[in-house]
């Protein structure tokens, strides 16, 4: 088991594996748990740079005293690197985007040991190819994600949850999405329940909650409802995608699921197969050969 504690060690490990023909699997035979420092947190800029082995809970503890957060809330307590590599997100995905939308820059160690930077630490930047996005969803097959610069959000002073028990979750979700309300999260706990999270200053949260209740009914809920949503998402084995307008049809084919209607994603109990189209596979193979020519990363 390899546990590099610096970029140099990570680079050496992958270069050596490439030379010797060994295959490493990030998270199993190549661990990032010693790459877990916060390198910079510029509170005034709402940005931070971390080593990718840091867990979300550890980062949360650093940011909370400043009234800030990384708006990523996937189930469990994964590392930042895992969030990117597996494109993990939770209910806050609705408003704040996924890892690809929050990453500003990365330092990668490619399969052959090459260390490369892309992006930067500022919130707006179009210089060079955006490798930080490229590795989102790459499942550790192209590179070890060593450092990540991230966009942060301010924690709002008030929050409220609306729980709508309904036989027509699709109708409720569409009514909310069609309205001018701006929820931070909107989940369907299929079958039968819609959860909505409002954040902001108290009068605005109250107003949104009241307007939402007038529109779709429901009652105030609490953090437990979201914990349940995350837990059920975490237990799901498959991620299913659909065009948001097909929400009703999609729900009708599923017995149970955690669904993000605006994102067009349903977390379902069974595995979801599917092979990408030939052109995409060709590009993925090309990238693998370019970034990990010896196949050092599983």
């Amino acid at each position, binding site marked *: 088991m390899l546990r590099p504690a610096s970029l140099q060690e990570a680079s050496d490990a992958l270069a050596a594996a490439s030379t010797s023909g060994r295959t490493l699997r990030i998270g199993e035979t190549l661990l990032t748990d010693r790459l877990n420092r916060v390198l910079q947190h510029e509170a005034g800029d709402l940005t931070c740079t971390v080593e990718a082995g840091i867990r979300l809970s550890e980062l949360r503890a650093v940011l909370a005293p400043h009234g800030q957060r990384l708006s990523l809330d996937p189930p469990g307590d994964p590392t930042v690197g895992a969030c990117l590599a597996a494109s993990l997100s939770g209910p806050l995905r609705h408003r704040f985007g996924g890892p690809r939308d929050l990453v500003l820059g990365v330092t990668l160690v490619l399969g052959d040991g090459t260390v490369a*930077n892309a992006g930067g630490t500022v919130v707006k930047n*179009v*210089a*060079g190819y955006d490798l930080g996005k490229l590795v989102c969803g790459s499942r550790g097959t192209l590179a070890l994600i060593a450092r990540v610069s991230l966009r942060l959000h301010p924690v709002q002073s008030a929050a409220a949850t609306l729980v709508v028990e309904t036989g027509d979750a699709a109708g409720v979700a569409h009514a909310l999405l069609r309205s001018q309300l701006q929820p931070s999260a909107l989940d369907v706990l299929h079958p039968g329940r819609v959860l909505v999270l409002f954040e902001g*200053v108290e009068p*605005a949260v109250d107003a949104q909650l009241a307007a939402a209740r007038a529109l779709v009914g429901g009652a105030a809920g609490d953090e437990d409802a979201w914990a349940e949503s995350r837990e059920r998402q975490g237990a799901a084995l498959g991620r299913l995608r659909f*065009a948001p*307008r097909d929400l009703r049809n999609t729900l009708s084919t599923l017995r149970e699921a955690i669904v993000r209607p605006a994102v067009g994603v349903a977390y379902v109990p069974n595995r979801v197969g599917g092979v990408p189209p030939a052109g*995409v596979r060709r590009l993925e193979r090309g990238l693998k050969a370019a970034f990990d020519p010896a196949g050092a990363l599983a």
Partner: protein
Amino acid sequence: MSLPPDLIGELETQVGPEHVIVEPEQLRVYDCDGLTGWRATPSAVVLPASTGEVQGVLRACSRASVPWVARGAGTGLSGGALPVAEGIVIALTRMDAILEVDLGSQRVVVQPGVTNLDVTRAVEADGFFYAPDPSSQQVCTIGGNVAENSGGAHCLKNGFTVNHVTGLTLVLPDGEAVELGGRSLDADGPDLLGVVVGSEGTLGIVTEITLRVLRTPEAVTTMLAAFHSLDAAGSACSRVISSGITPAAIEMMDRLTIEAAEQAFRPGYPEGAGSVLLVELDGVTAQVEHDARAVEALCRELGAFDVRVAQDAEERRLLWLGRKGAFPAMGRISPDYYVQDGVVPRTRLPEVLRRIEELSAERGLRVGNVFHAGDGNLHPLVLYDAAAGETERAKDLADAILEACLDAGGSLTGEHGIGVDKVCAMPGMFSERDLEVFTRLRAVFDPAGLANPGKVLPTPRLCGEVPGPFRLHPLERMGVAERF
């Protein structure tokens, strides 16, 4: 320049003879984009009408090993659409159909030649809008926006083009068409879509794009705060953001640009202002009202001597008038100007603006600042007179400004792209190793190097063998000083 003998004939077969331009007079229309100092006349211009035609054109180029440059409206400011003389330009302006409005999914599917504003026009009656709003939105195309990952004043809250593209069709340089993403988000596998957006036409030609549109907000408040100094406005901007408020837009103008705008358009900005901040808030009414009070209080605390709030659409238009007209206004007070696009961390705005003032005084050229302050994206306008031989001096000053941005931990470009304009500055931001990895990525899509050659990545031919002054990458400057 001469193309292989059969190529023109083949292109004509692909798109129809009337859509292949070879007349020197007509070719000249395409010889530059918005960066007019760089010009090259292409050997031919082709105007395909469909994905299939684009595929045919690229296959023909691939067989003949002829390089090509994609082009939208040609408003790019970094020379991204600058032709290569020995190659052809592929103009996408005929592909201007909105293919589908799917409001149930909050998506619109378009061809690349559709203008940015037309996307909003297609959905606004239903209460939706397309968020990225470059100032050039009446003319620039979605294909160009995708290639540049364009931003705009209102990207502070809602994100840039890349955050609003959910799917696209990319024709690779060998003619194969690849579908990336779709109507849902979070595709499996590496985020190829995320790397194609912003790749400046170097990975292929985008022929169909699925965009996210947003619901128009319930409330909008626009305010203008006038300060005596640029410093104070810069501090106010970074304080607003760090206080936890996310305005839809925060734009900033300095004395020179205010005066120029005032002469040209009379927006009636407060007299004696050394700088103004234009802040727009949108969202649910109660939140906007609260934030507007907070922003006004913060601005006054930091020295604003006048704060105006637009009471209706007409007043809002007037407040934006000066900002929107700033570039053309500069054209009236200076024969030539050169726009930079550097980015700095918001908290370093005041010091970088001071540095720009110093540099401007040192070099004896005026610099106007009008920019997207909320995300630290500067647009210093270096004013000069080419006829008086000031071009070199202007270029030097612009380079020095970019260096100041990089020194502050920023970026060469926030939205205009690298193109040819900043290609030789890339080694100042990225190491040789970083650039080599970019080259690997590019070659996966375009092994023969036919797609927009000479853009984005420096080559010895363009920039000489000596790499530019190298700075530590911002990531490396922090604590861990490892160099690879």
